[in-house]
């Protein structure tokens, strides 16, 4: 029994998309902390 090509493709694309979203969330969080004066 093997993983299908569809599963492998989706797994990789989902991982790349989530990684990209993580970068955006991280920048947004810093902006929010900065506005609240809670960076450090």
């Amino acid at each position: 029994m093997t993983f299908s090509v569809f599963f492998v493709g989706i797994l990789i694309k989902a991982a790349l998309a989530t990684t990209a979203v993580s970068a955006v969330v991280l920048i947004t969080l810093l902006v929010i902390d900065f506005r609240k004066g809670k960076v450090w």
Partner: protein
Amino acid sequence: MLHQTAILSPVMGWILIAVLGVLWIALGMYWGRKAKSMEGYMLAGRSVGLALGAATAMATWVTSNTTMLAPQFAFELGIWGMIAYSTASFGLFLFAPLAQRIRRLMPYGYTSGDFVRLRYGKIAWLIFLAISIFYGFTWLISMGMAGGILMNALAGIRYEVGMTAILFVCVVYTLFGGLYAVIGTDYIQSLIILIGIVIVGWGVLTKSDMNAVYTNLSESRPMLLSVLFPAAIMAIFNNLLFGIGEIFHSNVWWSRAFAMRKGVGWKAYILSGIFWFPVPIAAGFIALASGIFNVNVSSPDMVGPLVAARVLGQMGAVVVFVVFFCSLASSIDSLLAATSDLITEDIYRKMIHPSAGEETLRRVSSWIIVGLGVLTWIVCLPRIGTLATVLFFAGPMVGSAIWPIVTGLYWKRANSTGAVFGMLLGTAVGLFAYFEIGWFTASLIGAATSMVTVLVATYLRPAKFDWRRLDESQHHALGAEQ
């Protein structure tokens, strides 16, 4: 000697090292000015916010071991291998509630050693320190080696020279800036890592035909696509437990729990786990394409950079170089700071010089950071093994620390006998498994042995621990009560 597969010229390699090195040292010194006290230097004033907290946990956990070993896992263990590496994020998820509890029970704590000393007493503390310092040092060595290997493979810079350069940069900025420098640079490094992985991953994905990759694997190495690949399935449990053990016991993570603002710790660790989970898959899958691009893999831990450089050329090699430099720096700096804190607080201040003032402690801490850097450099000089063999040797030790830490934080009845024998027996049996069965079983067996030992000892001699004893500021009041 120029590495056969070097894609960048040594001049370009040196330019990148110089630019990144100067940037991290300058930022480290800038943020380090905030460290006016020892608490500032060691714990960034205990006021780190959510963005920096989540970023530092994520970046520290994305090490060279992630960016180099995840492709190696995919190359050797296939689809399950990538997923197995991702399970190391569970350590971050599960540490989230612990971070909150640690901050609440020990508002003035400094290290994970403080917890073991106050919770279990001196013998458990000494064993824990031996495990924790050995593990921290092993991790440092694996990353010093990775720095040398990477710079040699990508830019043809001699292994010893590249390894020396990255250690030097990290020692200097950690020395001047303490945890402020570590966490501040970690934020920028985490963004560079995430964006770089997406650029490289997307580049490889668009230039390779997924059907061709799949067909190539089906014909040449079908086990990599198998749902029932025994070694890969074992690796999932091993990596999961190794990751949990690493995070639960290591002062790298405890120091961040102490450093984050009240209420921030659990959110930061959950977020960092979400950010980290896809990284080994995004960074690892490119190794599966090595077959269709005819990449000659001389060393399995270099498969990721080699494929990226082959497919994306000079630009790809530059991005990979920068991502690796950041992933190495974000972990080396954290380890230097956290291990130095452990030695300064637990060994120097608690055992050698209890009345030492802030100035003395800062000086000692600085010397320890330099000493750790020099010692790592000496051990890294001869390349002693692959990254996996170096790192996973510490697996059974950290696996054996999981149960003493968790039960110690949540269970009043957990006792020091269970903690002592849990760590000793877990390490011994786990190391036996490492040599007799294979590295992929060592953490699993070490953790299982430790669990049984802790549970049996607790059942036979239950303790009745007073949680207030973990807060050293209350010890005077507790003494008066008794």
